[in-house]
Every structure is written in structure tokens, then in C-alpha cells.
């Protein structure tokens, strides 16, 4: 499997070339174009921890609480697929080597099927921050992983303590300890300062950060938009 990231940094897509029998697991809706000798299969992953069953699964589907995943398999050599995210921003590749990376839900784009994906990870809390739809994907194993960001993406090698606003986290290695806390000394100061909650990382490992916070952008657009019915 080979890859190439095109049109960086604001309109990035990744082109993954695959030979017969190779697989790729992708976020649903990420496929822009692909060659024809590929097959697709859709499965779901629960977001957040909750029970299973078909009816519950359907309920989650309409509540937008499931992560839908497409598995692409090349049926012959020289096949390719182009994947793109929704928002303006970059795509980055990360190689997992028997390790775990925790990826913000909207940033997970694709990964090697040998990497186990668990969207029910709740270590960072769910309703706490980042608004609705926030969830985390725990990626464990070995293989290639692709993530996307809103704006530019930059890795920070943490050695000691480091603080990242929760809306700017793309992913982090689980070798890091983390806890969510308020940014300032007082709650009032934290929220008035616009930095409601931050994540304090401790230890040694990589944190991928994005230059822009999607929910800040959305919130700044909101007041200019026409109200919706529901």
C-alpha cells in the first residue's frame, strides 16, 4: 500500500494505491474517486458505550450516534482510492507500530484494517466539551493511519506537561496521561477568556494539533445564519 497526499495544505486529499487483496478502512462519505476493481462493505461502530442489537443500532443511526465505516478491498493490482475530508484543511499520515493513538472523531479518515478501531472510547468525556457529536476513536495495532484537520495540522512532541485547548486536539498517543481542566484559575475567567476547557497532557508522546477549532468557527457563523426549524 502506497499513499500520496495531494493539494496540501488547505484542500488536501490522500490517494492510496492498493494491490490485490489489500484493504483500507475509511470513514463513510470520504471516498472522492476510486478505480473500479474494488469492493466496498459497510459496517458500524458504536460511538460512546451503549448496548447493541439491530433496533438499537437503527436508533443510533438516526440519532447520529454511530460511526459508519466502509471497508475497501482491491480485487486486482494497481487500484487506487482518493479520500477527502469535509472541511478545509490538511491530511496527515501516522504509522502505528504496536501502539495506540486516540483520534478525535471528526479527524479519523482511514486506517489499515489491522488497526482496531474503537469509537466507544470515553476517556475524555463526551458531553463535556466540543459540542454535540464529539467522540473519540481509539486506534490500536500496527499499520497506516490517516487523519484530517480543520486548518493546518502540527505535531507536538510532549515531554513533561503541555496544555491544548480541547477543540484543537486532532489525536494523541496513549502513552500520555491527560486530564480535562479549566484553562484559568476560575471557571468564570476560563469561559470569559473563550478557553472553556483545556486538556493537560503529561508524560512523553505526540499530540497532533489543528490550527483552527471547528466549533469556534461554527459558533461564529451561527448568529449570521437563518434559524432552522429543529
Amino acid at each position, binding site marked *: 500500500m502506497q499513499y500520496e497526499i495531494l*493539494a496540501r495544505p488547505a*484542500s488536501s486529499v490522500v490517494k492510496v494505491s492498493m494491490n490485490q487483496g489489500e484493504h483500507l478502512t475509511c470513514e463513510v462519505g470520504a471516498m472522492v474517486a476510486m478505480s*473500479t476493481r474494488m469492493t*466496498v462493505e*459497510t459496517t458500524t461502530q458504536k460511538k460512546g458505550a451503549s448496548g447493541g442489537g439491530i433496533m438499537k443500532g437503527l436508533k443510533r443511526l438516526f440519532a447520529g450516534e454511530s460511526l*459508519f465505516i466502509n471497508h475497501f478491498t482491491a480485487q486486482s493490482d494497481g487500484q487506487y482510492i482518493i479520500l*477527502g475530508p469535509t472541511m478545509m484543511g490538511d491530511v496527515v499520515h501516522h504509522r502505528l507500530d504496536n501502539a495506540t493513538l486516540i483520534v478525535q472523531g471528526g479527524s479519523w479518515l482511514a486506517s489499515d484494517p489491522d488497526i482496531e478501531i474503537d469509537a466507544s472510547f470515553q476517556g475524555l468525556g463526551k458531553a463535556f466539551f466540543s459540542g454535540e*457529536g464529539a467522540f473519540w476513536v481509539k486506534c490500536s495495532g500496527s499499520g497506516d493511519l490517516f487523519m484530517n484537520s480543520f486548518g493546518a495540522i502540527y505535531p507536538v512532541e510532549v515531554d513533561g506537561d503541555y496544555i491544548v485547548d480541547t477543540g484543537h486536539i486532532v489525536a494523541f498517543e496513549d502513552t500520555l496521561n491527560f486530564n480535562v481542566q479549566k484553562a484559568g484559575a476560575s471557571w468564570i475567567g476560563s469561559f470569559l477568556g473563550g478557553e472553556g476547557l483545556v486538556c493537560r497532557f503529561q508524560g512523553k508522546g505526540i499530540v497532533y494539533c489543528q490550527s483552527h477549532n471547528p466549533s469556534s468557527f461554527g459558533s461564529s*457563523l*451561527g448568529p449570521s445564519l437563518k434559524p432552522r426549524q429543529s
Partner: protein
Amino acid sequence: MSFTITQRPDFALVTVQLQSGQTYHSEPGAMATMSPNIELKASLKGGLMSSISRGLGGESLIISSYTSKGGEGEITFAAGQPGDALHYALDGSTDIYLQRGAYLANSEGVEITSKWQGMRGFFSGEGLILLKAHGNGDLFFNSYGAIIELDVEDDVYVDTGFIVAFESTLNYQVTTLPGARPGTNWKSLFLGGEGLVCRFSGRGKVWIQTRQIATYLNWVHRYRPVQKSN
């Protein structure tokens, strides 16, 4: 006629040098700057029927025309949305089909009409109602996000929302992904999000965009204020 395209791929700007008496046409509002000796006229170019045909193709009924009077002139064009732009030299042998909204500008000698897609376009839900550029001259088209050129030798699938333009030498068909056909795997069709794609076959070029306005609008939608019912 000479031209340059600068600021690719995120903020493409097309600059065209006009000779004395030469005319250029564009979608309304596309002109960013121009020499003072260029005269602008808005018209239903090609007559009412041709305009209605363009309207069916998702473009404005009105075409802006720019004529350089009493000497050379320079004009720059940019699309409403940030994105890429490309040039194609039509020589009468191959036509170009443009997706809704992709038309930017053209020189004299190029005719823009719509092509009724029949059920193919109707079914896609993406408004695969295409404009057709035909004739001898220069054509400029634009995208949201970067434009990537695919040289089709073997068949290729493109999500219908990512098609910008393609050469008329290609055959195309709106279809579903393999494994996503009804009866084989209903989940992929309904939950896969990638249900409808355009399959291109034969030889020719397809230009695809790396982002889609529709998905961006879906993202923005959740930030709209909710209307209070009285």
C-alpha cells in the same frame, strides 16, 4: 489571447489579456478587476432558449460579456467560492461537460448549453445536470477545493458530488458502488453514504474537486440557531 492562473489551488485567479475588440464571457459576478477600457454588457447570450437551457444546467440565465475597446485590456476572473480553476482549449473535436456551478468564463467561439441527463441526472440527486461547452476557443472552469485531473484509461468511479468536468470522449453512467447494490448489501447503499457514483469508461480526462460545498453546508447547518415556536 494569453492568460495566467495564479494562487492555485485554494484561491485561483484567472487573468486574461484581451486584444483590441476582443470579447470574453463569464458567469455574472466573476469579474474581479479589469482595465478601464473594457466594456461590460449583461445579456441573455445566445437568445432566450439558449439562456433557459443554461438555466436548466444550474447556471445563471445572464451571461456577462467584456469587450476591450480601443486597445488591449486585462481582466481577472474568480469564482464566488474559494477553490481552484483550470483552462481547457476547445478545438471542436472534443466537448467538455461541466457540473453545475463549474462554469467560469469562455472566449468567443465557445458555446455553453445544457445537456439533459434524463433519468441519470434525475436519479443522482446531485443535480448531475450538465453544461456542455462546445466549439473552438478557451474555457475556464472552477471548483470548491483543489482540482485533480484523472486520466481515465481504465474505468473509474467518482462520487457524483465531486465531479467538476470531463471530456465528451468518455462514457459515463450513474450507478452504485459494487457491494453497495440493492440485494447484495443494503447497508452499503443506504448507510454507506457513497451510494451514488458516476462510472467513467473509455479514454479521456475527468477533473474532480477535493471538497464539496454540500457536505460543508451540512456541517454548518448544525450551528444554525433553532427557531423558537410560539
